[in-house]
């Protein structure tokens, strides 16, 4: 079951904040976040496990609400390097990570 990501696209200025969301209709074991720049491979950002934890990576943090089957990624004081497509991957059972359609983030000077 593919997770749903929203909004589809975000445009923000350098230094601004943004939140992007990932939700699933099924119970999740974990949520992964990856960022992909055009023509490149997806790059791992973080994993969130059951337990409602929050994780951070530089000024990018995320939360996982397992009851709501949702995860949110917080881009704080965004930098130009944050531009890319953010994919959440959700794991419903072992060894399969299903990706959402992605959130395209564009950071402009």
């Amino acid at each position: 079951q593919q997770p749903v990501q929203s909004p589809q696209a975000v445009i923000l200025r350098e230094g601004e904040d943004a939140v992007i969301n990932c939700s699933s209709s099924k119970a999740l074991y974990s949520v992964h976040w990856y960022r992909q720049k055009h023509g490149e491979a997806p790059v791992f950002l973080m994993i969130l496990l059951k337990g409602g934890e929050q994780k951070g990576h530089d000024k990018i943090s995320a939360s996982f609400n397992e009851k709501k089957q949702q995860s949110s990624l917080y881009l704080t004081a965004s930098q130009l390097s944050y531009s890319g497509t953010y994919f959440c991957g959700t794991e419903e059972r072992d060894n399969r990570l299903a990706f959402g359609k992605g959130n395209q983030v564009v950071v402009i000077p």
Partner: protein
Amino acid sequence: AAGVIQSPRHLIKEKRETATLKCYPIPRHDTVYWYQQGPGQDPQFLISFYEKMQSDKGSIPDRFSAQQFSDYHSELNMSSLELGDSALYFCASSLGTGLPNEKLFFGSGTQLSVL
């Protein structure tokens, strides 16, 4: 540090031909995943292997097959190629049983164009 290596980087084939894509995981990684990503699309899970055995199967067409060898590298074999098979094919690897605790490391992908 060593990364996931995929070859070839680009591949051009004609309809009904066959293609073989190769993936060399990060040393000591024993789990390999294959994903297909169409233009502007999200990566679609095809198949995964753990310790040389198929561990899960996704939306992989019957025309495709894959295996993981004793040195843990994996090959994706695609036959009777169709125009719709044109896509970027990513291989990813992880250590151990993979999910949910292990992050995936992606290769640079093989861009397959079917003419």
